[in-house]
């Protein structure tokens, strides 16, 4: 789920940036530092949408760096248990398939794939229903439900299921082509 929230961060700025464009530098650095990171609490920071407030800088003794408390608005993405997401399949193997929804990797175990879908190995491993009408392979788009999340320092890993109503393939690249 996406959230637009306000976060705060202490930015350390090198003295060489001090000057008329200090603010710009600070914002640029903020974006560089923050966007794309992941925290367990807030999830992935997708984008910074604005800087609310830059506090007074504090010069660090001994280094000359200055620390600015910066309040910024950003869009974060955090997957939740039970959330339904659309994701792109990135890898299929006999244990299930991996899909990605933006920065989040989701694993759908074969236990969580409907029983009528069977793993077909081969050049393009996939899960196919017995009648062949539905096929999950790499680059398929699936709708899945997250049933578990594991949050590491740098990534969020989810377990998903497509064994539920209205879940499963929503767009099959194979079919389109």
């Amino acid at each position: 789920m996406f959230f637009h929230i306000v976060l705060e961060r202490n930015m350390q700025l090198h003295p060489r940036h001090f000057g008329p464009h200090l603010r710009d530098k600070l914002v640029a650095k903020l974006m560089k530092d923050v966007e794309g990171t992941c925290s367990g609490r807030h999830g992935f920071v997708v984008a910074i949408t604005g800087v609310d407030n830059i506090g007074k800088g504090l010069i660090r003794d001994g280094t000359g760096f200055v620390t600015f408390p910066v309040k910024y608005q950003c869009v974060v993405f955090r997957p939740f248990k039970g959330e339904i997401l659309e994701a792109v399949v990135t890898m299929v193997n006999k244990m299930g398939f991996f899909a990605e929804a933006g920065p989040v990797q989701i694993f759908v175990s074969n236990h969580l794939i409907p029983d009528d879908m069977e793993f077909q190995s081969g050049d393009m491993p996939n899960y196919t229903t017995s009648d062949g009408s539905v096929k999950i392979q790499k680059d398929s788009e699936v709708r899945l439900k997250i049933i578990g999340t594991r949050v590491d320092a740098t990534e969020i890993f989810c377990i998903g299921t497509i064994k539920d109503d209205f879940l499963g393939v929503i767009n099959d690249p194979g079919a389109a082509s």
Partner: protein
Amino acid sequence: MPRRRDDDDLEPEDVEEDEDQLDDEEDEDYGGSRGGSSRKRRRSDFIDDAAEEDDEEEEEDEDFEDNPRSTSQKQRRRSGSQFFELEAAVDSDDEEEEEEGEDDFIVDGGAEIPDEDDGRRMHRRPLLPREDDQEDFEALERRIQARYAKSSHAEYDEETTDVEQQALLPSIKDPKLWMVKCAIGREREAAICLMQKCIDKGPELQIRSAIALDHLKNYIYVEADKEAHVKEACKGLRNIYSMKVMLVPIKEMTDVLSVESKAIDLSRDTWVRMKIGTYKGDLAKVVDVDNVRQRVTVKLIPRIDLQALANKLDGREAVKKKAFVPVPRFMNIEEAREMHIRVERRRDPATGDYFENIGGMLFKDGFLYKTVSMKSISSNNIQPTFDELEKFRTPGENGDGDIGSLTTLFANRKKGHFMKGDAVIVVKGDLKNLMGWVEKVEEENVHIRPKMKGLPNTLAVNEKDLCKYFKPGDHVKVVSGAQEGATGMVVKVEGHVLIIVSDTTKEDIRVFGDNVVESSEVTSGVTRIGDYELHDLVLLDNMSFGVIIRVESEAFQVLKGVPERPEVVLVKLREIKSKIERKSNAQDQSKNTVSVKDVVRILEGPCKGKLGPVEHIYRGILFICDRHHLEHAGYICAKAQSCRVIGGSHPNGDRNGDSVASRFANLRAPPQIPQSPRRLPRGGPPVNRKVLPSTSPKINVAGGGRHRGGRGHDSLVGVTIKIRLGPFKGYRGRVVDVNGQSVRVELDSQMKIVTGKCSLVHSVCINIASSGYLVSVWTIIVDLHAVNRNQISDTVAVATPFREAPRYGLGSETPMHPSRTPLHPYMTPMRDPGATPIHDGMRTPMRDRAWNPYAPMSPPRDNWEDGNPASWGTSPQYQPGSPRSRPYEGPTPGSGWANTPSGNYSEAGTPRESSPSYANAPSPYLPSTPGGQPMTPSSASYLPGTPGGQPMTPGSGGLDVMSPTIEHLRVVWIRASFILEVGVTYKHLLEDMHWNPVLMRNVSDKFGEKMGEKKYSYASPYKLSNTNKRDLDQLGELLVVENCMYYMTVGQGECHGVFGVVGRITSIHCRPFDRGEEACQLFPIFSECERGCVGRCAIQNCKMVSSSEVELKCVHYGNGMDLCYEFIFMSLLLGIRIHGDKLGVFWKFLAASGDSEGPWFMPDILVNVRKPGEDPVIGVVREVLPNGTCRVALGMSGDGEIVAALPHEMEAVVPRKSDKIKIMGGAHRGSTGKLIGIDSSDGIVKVDDTLDVKILDMAILAKLAHPY
């Protein structure tokens, strides 16, 4: 009955005990032990055919199995049944858990000679001394109570209260238990011997009992009041080693004899394991329990070899005894029939079920139904594995066994299984399927808070009716069972079984819900068996090798080093020959060196396109770990040739440079070097150079020194070092941790981490302004007094290049002039007003593309551009050579470097016009070779003696990088006090930086004396106080280095090696040196390091130019010329740092001086002294003074008068074959050896300490004086 505890205050119990004892004795007397009880039964119960049959069956089994041990035992017992029985008696006292097999044997024995046996026993009994007999251990009593409580003496249960039990515990007044060593495997024999001795000797033997425990090898227990009694008793017994008698602490006494609680709560459907026989260890399920007869009927998967059975039934003797146990397999009746085995179908009268009876064995549904003694099964802590349970599901049975197994599983739960807050579900009873959370756990009952509304707040539920509840998505950790330690996320719950996706392997694991707990921890489970750990590179049996990608319970999965396809084999521990720990390198497609941790991309093969750090290299095969590769734990095996190092050169760019030329060519190219057009052809005489321009390429070279584009570790951590002192001397290892001055080193050769101390902090000086390239390297020697860190030195694989090019030893000339050149470039950066040397790029110089010389250069930065020229202008003036007359004069303003054409240079300072070497300059195009010589010399050797009037050629500039000049390094010594922040390190490996060894060697040589390796007489006053340990901005530790000498090397191009620890100088304070002793101490080094310098130097002036800059002026005088040096150190503006940790010191070396050519005399060598107007006299150099003069003791053995001689007045005596020599230069400088041969200008030398044979230039060999 005489009681042995007459004085006991336990009289009341005693009576009871007595009875009990009697009871027990009776029992023993009658049946002799546990075997006895069964025999007794047998006698009375002969009616029971089935049981009898079964027993026989068991015996048969035993026979069939017939392992040698049992036969021998049997024989032994039969022959010496007396002992045997005795032993049995003892056993029964000590050891409840007797093996059924012996039980059988006892029965055998009993059957053969029952009466006699009993009779003997009866007789013997009275002979036994009371003490021995009455080893009334409370434990024993309790056990007996427990045993009989169930059947006949149930009332005891009520009677023995806890208090009474407590009272029975041994106290200090009781005899003690002593542990005595005996021969392995002879424990029982030893005990029996003691017993026999006791019988023979009667009361004079003062021990009370002897105990041999089955589970305790090598020891027996003896009960006695005093140790002396034990020794006395053991005296003369061959099997007992009474040398060491250990007292068993009172607390542990009961443990010695306590037995696992015998209260077997066997009920139907319990899982048990067989303890003996063919089925030993097999899982069995209880189908019937006969508590009275202590027999249990269990259901097993038969292990029957039908063929053998058929043979047997046919009467054909199975000739060969099977060494193997048949695999468990369901009995196939049809198959049996086909083999003409008679199968009877019988109905069991009790249950009404039909059983197939084959040769006395009962089968049903393929299972074997077997009635065994309760003792032959173990029911405690049975944890059936999944596989076993799976197997137990008969084809017909569809998993209804699950509930049954559950009950057992529950029964075997550990205490504290449920914790508050656990989600549970009720699996039995009226509340079945009720979910809830554990609120409180009492003994058996668990109070749960039900999920459902309308129920009381908490419900007490029996623990056994509860089951942990997990739902898909929970993150759990397996806490017991085969998969213990693994973590993962639940994807499916099948009743009691969870399917978990492991965090590490992303594979499914099936575990029992009982075995897991909810946890957010992420681990991989077992990662090591024996010496081998997950992800180790191992050598397999058949000389193949691979990486362990998975550790299973008893085997490893190994990804073999076959690049064509991923080949995974399952290997047992013993199939692994060894771990491969050797670090090797390989060459990638473009001939770049690939070393471990380099990031490579796979260009060919099945895993084309994958990318990841190299984890192992072996025989040109890389094991790459790609985090996104899910198979094989992310490991990919690829040929080195089909990979490319990321950040490496592109094909045909020779990054590693066999030919430096190509590299330089590269360097030249960068367009941003404005002056490039002006550059001279490589190798050409340097002319007209503008310092500034040349800078960048050179720096490039320097910093570029390549490196490890992808490697990101900035620290000494990871550096390979060699330990030079202490017990681990000579070991190599990797630094795993640096803390202050102590360094933890993981030894390569042993799986061991040792902590050492290091006296050398290698610091890297970085030219920040030059976009993060490393410009110069300096080394700080801290604290030679304290032993800190001084046991470690970098492994400097003693610069091979140097050895290879011995001639440089002579031709000091060439290297020299080049050395100067580089200096200029460096200056620029410092001067740069913009001086914020830290560009973004710089912070991470290592990773930065810019860092890699091969990568295209980023366009010059603005500040760089405008800063430089300007700065040059302002650069400190350089006074080429101040005449002696005004040695202390400040620098003459005027000629900035920039303007000084090389020509000037030579004119200016050097008295001697260009030496021949100069002409040679271009020739030695070996960048790597030369530096060594100049660097290495010891202080003494570099004596000023020879005024080397080598002109400094500032001119060549960056261009000259390519020229041979590269080879030279300079080292400058400065004394200063400063605060150094250590602990932040660069990770640069020295391995392929051939120049580094020079530096390092130099350092170590100089302090070799301290290091215990080389013998240089020079010692410097270094002091370091490791104070102010303060964490400054997470950078590391602060060291206050007081009055320390440190030296810097300056050189060209590659000479600016990259290595070592970066110390960040946070403040610096230099003070001038006097001309006195200090100066002398200082500058010998100076001149030594810098070969060109002769004579003494003194710092004339030193001031802090700014907070970040120090200016030193030194006067150098000697050999008829005085030169003024000016150094400027800039510790960067405080607060500027690169990548958080590398703060360079900028320095500038503004002076040039005459060069000396050596030779560098050393003490103890024979020289010819030619004083003008005198005949040459032979003498022995006794001492080399800082100013270059030597004190020479005249005479062959140095026993004559001592004269002072200037270097140019001396000439080393050329050694002859088989003379003892001393090496005056090169890598082995200072070593002594023997000249074992002469090959024109080269001498073949056997070095004394290493016994290596070296070929060295004769010119650096001097004859060693005979010891006087």
